[in-house]
Every structure is written in structure tokens, then in C-alpha cells.
């Protein structure tokens, strides 16, 4: 096999891995949108906030230290301890559940029955608010997330595949972190699907996604289910935040991955979990492959816009997304 072809395959594999990340973020959107019809603009910031909280807890940072110091003239920053990763993750999940509850209690409870555009605006407000809270709680400097996840090229894959091509081919270069991320994502998605199919609250969640009135009439509390889906979305955000943060550090740009989820959703449809996953993979592979094949001809940097153009094409030719049912206008 020619080296060019093999490098093409490597690009596809790496694209798939990047796609997993997009799919994770898109999944958070889909969960909330299905259950409440809210397009949650804050999903990306939730990933940032979750990652910031995780780092803060692990390093024993005192939350709101700047605020406390500025108000009381103190000089405190750290508790002076380190929290083990697993415990810190559990605590962060707790914080995200608390956040879900607060969002429901103080925001959406007062907006029941409002137009979707109002709800959407509320989530924009929420995004900026949460970003501010994140800053205030944990400071705005770039942080490294030292969870001890494996990183760098997987040598064994390189060695095992080096023989496939000629002298120009040195084997597939695949980041170990991407492999871990893919494994985690698979476990997460399987877990979510099992949860929604086979548990009481999962079934209630699907019922709420289908019809609010009917759900109420069989004794389901909408409020509880909404807290539940926001908690799940918070958990998915944490996982995405960990993976992304481990790769590129925990910083503001993390909240921008949410923007990549948008074209993923246009491809996959806003209400389909398989759609979010397949859409994420297509965008991931598509943009890497496009950059590899066409990029050099047009001066590169196609990854910035490729996903959006692909999404636009989809909007024109298949507006319901890959898995959505055909939209038939009723007149």
C-alpha cells in the first residue's frame, strides 16, 4: 500500500477520535433539547465550568478566593491539601447536580410555557453568567488538568503498523489520550442508553421527551426530570471537559467547542442520540480529511469553516438531519 493512502487512513482515524469529542458535546445538547425543547447555549460553558471545578477541587483551591481577599483584605488561596482525582470527580459531579437544580429552581421554573426563543435567550444569559461565576470561583488563568491520563503517540500502534507501507511510512500516529477518550465515550453512551431504556427514571425521561401532558397524567414530575437531564448534561459536560482539558489545558477556549457541536446537531438532528454520535464522527472525519486532501490547495485552515459549510449543505438538502423524520408541512 502506498504511504499516501496509509496516511489518509491515519487522518480518518484521527478524525474519528476528534469526532468523538464533538459527539460528546452534542450529546449534552440533545439530552436537554429532547426533554424540554430548550436549546442550551450554555453546554460548552458547562464543560469549561466542570473542568475548572475539577482542577480547583483537586488542587485544593479555595473557591471565590479573589473575592474573599478583595473584600476582607485577606491573602488566602489554597486549603493546603490535594484531593485524589476520583474523589474530586465525584465532588464535581455533585457540583454539576447542584447547578442543574439551581438552573431549574431559579431560572426555568419561572419560564414554563414561554416561547422557545425566550428559553434560548435565557440559556445565552446563563452561559455568560456561568462563565463569570467560573472566573470568580476559580480564577481566569489557564490550568493544567493532571489526571494522569496517558498521553502522546501510542508507540505500539506505530510499531505494529509500520510494516504496512514502504520506507516512507512509519506507522499510524494515534494519540493515547484519544484512545482513552473514545473508550470513555463508548462507556458513557452505552450507560446513557441503558439508563433511558431500563430504569424507571430513564423511562420517565423518554415519556417527558415525548409528551409533557401525558407524562404529568401518569404521575411524572417534570421538574424532577428536568433537573435529572440537566444533571446528565452536566455529567456529559464534565467528561468532555476532562478530555478536552487534558489535551489542551483548561481555558476559556474550551467553551467554544460548543460551537462545533452546532453543525454536528444540524447533521444528526436535535433530538437523536445516535444522530449526535454519527454526526460528530462525520464532522470529525470530514474536516480532517478535507484538510488533508484539499487544504494544501486552498492554503489550509479549512478546519475552521468546513463543518459549517457541510452543515449548511445539509440544511439545504436534508433539513431534518440524518435521522430525523421527513418534515412535511401541514397546511
Amino acid at each position, binding site marked *: 500500500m502506498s504511504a499516501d493512502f496509509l496516511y489518509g487512513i491515519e487522518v480518518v482515524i484521527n478524525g474519528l477520535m476528534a469526532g468523538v469529542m464533538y459527539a460528546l458535546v452534542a450529546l449534552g445538547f440533545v439530552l436537554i433539547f429532547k426533554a424540554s425543547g430548550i436549546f442550551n447555549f450554555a453546554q460548552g460553558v458547562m464543560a469549561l465550568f466542570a473542568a475548572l471545578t475539577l482542577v480547583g477541587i483537586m488542587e485544593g483551591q479555595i473557591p471565590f478566593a479573589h473575592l474573599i481577599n478583595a473584600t476582607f483584605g485577606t491573602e488566602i488561596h489554597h486549603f493546603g491539601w490535594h484531593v485524589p482525582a476520583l474523589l474530586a470527580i465525584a465532588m464535581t459531579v455533585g457540583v454539576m447536580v447542584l447547578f442543574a437544580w439551581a438552573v431549574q429552581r431559579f431560572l426555568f421554573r419561572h419560564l414554563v410555557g414561554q416561547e422557545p426563543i425566550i428559553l434560548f435567550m435565557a440559556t445565552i444569559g446563563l452561559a455568560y453568567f456561568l462563565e463569570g461565576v467560573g472566573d470568580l470561583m476559580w480564577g481566569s488563568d489557564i490550568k493544567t488538568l493532571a489526571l494522569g491520563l496517558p498521553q502522546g503517540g501510542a508507540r505500539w500502534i506505530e510499531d505494529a503498523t509500520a510494516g504496512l507501507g514502504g520506507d516512507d511510512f512509519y506507522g499510524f500516529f494515534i494519540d493515547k489520550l484519544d484512545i482513552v477518550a473514545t473508550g470513555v465515550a463508548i462507556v458513557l453512551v452505552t450507560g446513557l442508553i441503558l439508563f433511558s431504556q431500563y430504569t*424507571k427514571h430513564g423511562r*420517565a425521561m423518554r415519556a417527558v421527551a415525548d409528551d409533557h401532558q*401525558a407524562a404529568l397524567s401518569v404521575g411524572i414530575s417534570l421538574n424532577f426530570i428536568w433537573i435529572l437531564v440537566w444533571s446528565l448534561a452536566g455529567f456529559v459536560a464534565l467528561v468532555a471537559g476532562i478530555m478536552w482539558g487534558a489535551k489542551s489545558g483548561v481555558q476559556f477556549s474550551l467553551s467554544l467547542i460548543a460551537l462545533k457541536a452546532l453543525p454536528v446537531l444540524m447533521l444528526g438532528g436535535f433530538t437523536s442520540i445516535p444522530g449526535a454520535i454519527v454526526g460528530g464522527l462525520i464532522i470529525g472525519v470530514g474536516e480532517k480529511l478535507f484538510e488533508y486532501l484539499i487544504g494544501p490547495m486552498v492554503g489550509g485552515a479549512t478546519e475552521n469553516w468546513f463543518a459549517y459549510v457541510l452543515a449548511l449543505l445539509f440544511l439545504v438538502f436534508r433539513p431534518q438531519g440524518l435521522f430525523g423524520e421527513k418534515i412535511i408541512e401541514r397546511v
Partner: protein
Amino acid sequence: MKDMTESYVTEDGRTIGDVMLDLRNITLRFGGVEAIKDISFDIREGEIRAIIGPNGAGKSSMLNVISGFYIPQEGEVWFHGRKRPQMKPYQVARQGIARTFQNIALFEGMTVLDNIMTGRLNYTKSGMLAQAIWKGKAEREETENREKVERVIDFLEIQAIRKTPVGRLPYGLKKRVELARALAADPKLLLLDEPMAGMNVEEKEDMSRFILDVNDEFGTTIALIEHDMGVVMDLSDRVVVMDYGKKIGDGTPDDVRNNQAVIDAYLGVAHDD
């Protein structure tokens, strides 16, 4: 008042017990519109209570008050001898009050079986995931729920469509599935909002039979809204008549049929139907 709380046996041998639900001076407004004006009536254990009246009379609003979907501005709801605090619809459902809707509210994306299974959610503590882990208790619970649902499916004669997505069913069958879901919850009180609207004669006869059988075999108390006077006269023990949000009659089918105010209200709208 004493005679009202004493139980009695009907001509066809069913026992009607104490007052189960007591509505006292209910008033419900939407902005300037008074949908219900100072209405009181009760529903007794084991009876079939009909609510009739012309379109817009406030019948559905009344059911919505009972099931917690609407909160009346004035008045009290007493259930099993206790004044009910303000409740959300899901809390009312958990007290054993199930309902169907005038405009059918089903889970369109689920199969008939899954729809009916949702009626059992409140009897589910663990679900099948727990069952995989603990076996025993969770498994028993799931089996019980399934058995109950299968009994309801047999009872309403919808075995043939168990696996059909509800979205594909014709109107008449959807109404039946909605009833099945309500029944699966083993309700003490069943509220039916126009269960036979839009049905042909044969479907109406089936539905009437089901309603009678539910009441007779399970002892379920039923409040239903219905337009077809023939059906109402056949089914119900007592009838409340509403017009423009007011109660204009209350009593046995015979009482109500001979009530002048009721006759006037019905003659006045007879041409609309």
C-alpha cells in the same frame, strides 16, 4: 346530609359508597372569562358520574381542576374526607387519580405496550437495570407490572396492536390505548374527557361496555364527560349538568332529563351539534 354519605346498592347490584371526592364552591377564571362559577358537587365511591353540558360550558376545566392541571381561584377540593392542599398534576396522579384527555395525550413515539407501561411508573421502584444486578425484588416488581399491563390489554381487546407505534393508530384505537394507560395505574378515580367523541356507533358501544366493565369488575369510580345523551343515560348513576360555567342540574339521569333548565340549555344549542 346524612343520607348522602350512606352507602346503597344500585338496581344492577353495585355498591355505591361514601363521598370520595367533594368539590366545594369551585370558581375558575382565565383572565376575564369565568370558566367555572361557584360549582359544588361530589363523586361517591363506586359510582359513574357524568358531567354534561354544551360546548364551552366548562366541563373539561372541571376535570382539569380535579386532576390538578388547573388551579381554581376559589373553592376547595376534598378527597377521601380530607381537604386537598394545592397539588401538581403528578401529585394528584400519585394519589390514585388517572385521566384521559379530550384531545388525546399519548406518547406518539412509543409502542402501545410502552405507552401502557408508563401507567405503571409509580409502581416501579427499581426498573430492569436494578433487576439485572439484584434479581429478586426488582424482578418481581417488573413481572407484576407486566402482568397488570397484559391484563389491561386483554381486557380492552388490544392484543393485536401491542407492538404498534401509537402514532400509526386510528383515532378510535388511540382513545382505547389512552384508557388502557390510565387503567394500568390501578386508579381509585378515573376521569374520562369525552371518551367516545369522534367514534362510530360500534366503537361507542365497545367503549360503553368497557367503561361499565371497569366500574363493575374493578370497582373503579368514574367521572366522565360525554355529549351523547343516550350513552350518558345508559352509563351513569348521577349526572351534573353545566352551562356557561354554572351548574344547572344535578341528580339521577331521570331527574336531569326532566329538569326544565337542562332542557332549555340543550334546546338552545341543539342546532350547533
